[in-house]
């Protein structure tokens, strides 16, 4: 028996009843990208501001983490592609009207600068490794050269870190067809969130008290700014067009309410802010590890909400009689 199923462009679960083309792979990548931006930014900034004594890990050891985190993120990004064998096509052109094209090239530019950052601080950051390879004259020469230019490298890293942290937000905000994303606030939100997760990770890992204190202070400031941007985002949605009103309804009493207010705002922003404030004042030290972890979780939850809610908003609404779940019965 020969059975042919004709599926039209509309009767397909990727767009009916809501668009669902981007899933966990993208949320994870967005989180990792933001975290890497924060890592690169603070490792370069602390070096430039000569915080070697106050923040030794950030100056000397942090940059390596950026390489690891972004590589993990790009793995999930690659997994999301449906036509994986052609991934190299991102790099045979540059399309000025495509934020994704900018992103593809920013991701490439990241690697040489991050590697140079690591090399320029290898001897002071990972002395054991450096001592093992210093025996080789070529490597020693490269390390010498990188150390001599460590400030130039750090100056290069700052704009790349900012570009990495902000472009994903700009990318999503460029989709005028998805009203929840289509706001100029999304780029800055993702950047500040990325920097906050970077500061939180540094505060978590750093061993010196002065460094943890410095990054706790930085994170307090960043969380405060992030709360402001989130508030502006809610106001913008609540006073916007019909699809934006539909989106904000999901955040204020709808399906995303618990995730947004309970997990992202309360656990991911407010509670860490309070804990970090008390830590700076010297009390409740035993909760010191909790605040950065919550910030990291909050950063990820923000990306999950952004990716999923954005796909649920649209300018066009069709009533489709076709039940896309019937397609599952074919397997």
């Amino acid at each position, binding site marked *: 028996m020969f059975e042919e199923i004709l599926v039209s462009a509309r009767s397909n679960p990727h767009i009916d009843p809501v668009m669902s083309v981007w899933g966990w792979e993208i949320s994870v990548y967005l989180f990792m990208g933001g975290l890497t931006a924060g890592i690169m930014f603070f490792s370069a900034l602390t070096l430039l501001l000569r915080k070697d004594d106050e923040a030794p890990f950030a100056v000397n050891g942090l940059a390596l983490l950026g390489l690891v985190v972004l590589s993990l993120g790009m793995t999930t990004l690659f997994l999301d592609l449906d*036509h994986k064998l052609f991934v190299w096509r991102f790099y045979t052109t540059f399309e000025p009207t495509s934020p994704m094209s900018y992103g593809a090239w920013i991701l490439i530019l990241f690697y040489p600068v991050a590697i140079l950052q690591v090399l320029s601080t290898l001897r002071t950051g990972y002395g054991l490794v450096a001592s093992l390879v210093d025996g080789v004259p070529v490597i020693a020469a490269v390390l010498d050269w990188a150390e001599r230019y460590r400030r130039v490298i750090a100056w290069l890293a700052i704009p790349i870190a900012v570009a990495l942290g902000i472009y994903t937000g700009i990318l999503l905000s460029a989709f005028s*067809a998805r009203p929840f994303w289509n706001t100029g606030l999304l780029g800055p939100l993702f950047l500040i969130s990325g920097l906050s997760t970077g500061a939180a990770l540094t505060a978590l890992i750093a061993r010196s008290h002065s460094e943890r204190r410095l990054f706790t202070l930085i994170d307090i400031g960043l969380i405060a700014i992030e709360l402001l941007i989130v508030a502006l985002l809610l106001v913008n949605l609540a006073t916007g067009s019909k699809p934006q009103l539909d989106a904000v309804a999901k955040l204020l009493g709808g399906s995303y309410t618990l995730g947004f207010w309970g997990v992202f705002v309360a656990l991911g922003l407010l509670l860490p802010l309070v804990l970090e404030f008390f830590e700076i004042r010297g009390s409740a030290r035993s909760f010191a590890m909790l605040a950065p972890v919550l910030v990291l979780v909050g950063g990820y939850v923000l990306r999950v909400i952004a990716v999923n809610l954005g796909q649920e908003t649209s300018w066009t609404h069709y009533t489709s009689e076709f039940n896309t779940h019937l397609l599952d019965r074919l397997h």
Partner: protein
Amino acid sequence: MCPTGASHRWNDSNIVLVDPNKCTGCKACIAACPYDARLIMHPGGYIDKCTFCSHRVEKGLDPACVSTCPTHCMHFGVLNDPSSTVSELLRTRKHKVLNPETGNEPNVYYLI
């Protein structure tokens, strides 16, 4: 929005086609389309959309859906040419497009 140039205008016309050899399956175009008109071509994985039967149009034929329509309710043609049927129809009949507020100036007109 396409990062590789896979999505492109065919022959300087307003017909947009997807080149499967340049498509990475990133799905940015699916997100960008306010009409949800694009789909993932399984099992290949590249993205595609209505081609307006470009393979017929380049031979001077109408798209298949226009040719086959039993009530002749669909018309296809060159809007730049003031003497074409479609230009005449737009001049003489009331028409609308879907979701003009999205700003992408679609060339699919509905005669009302």
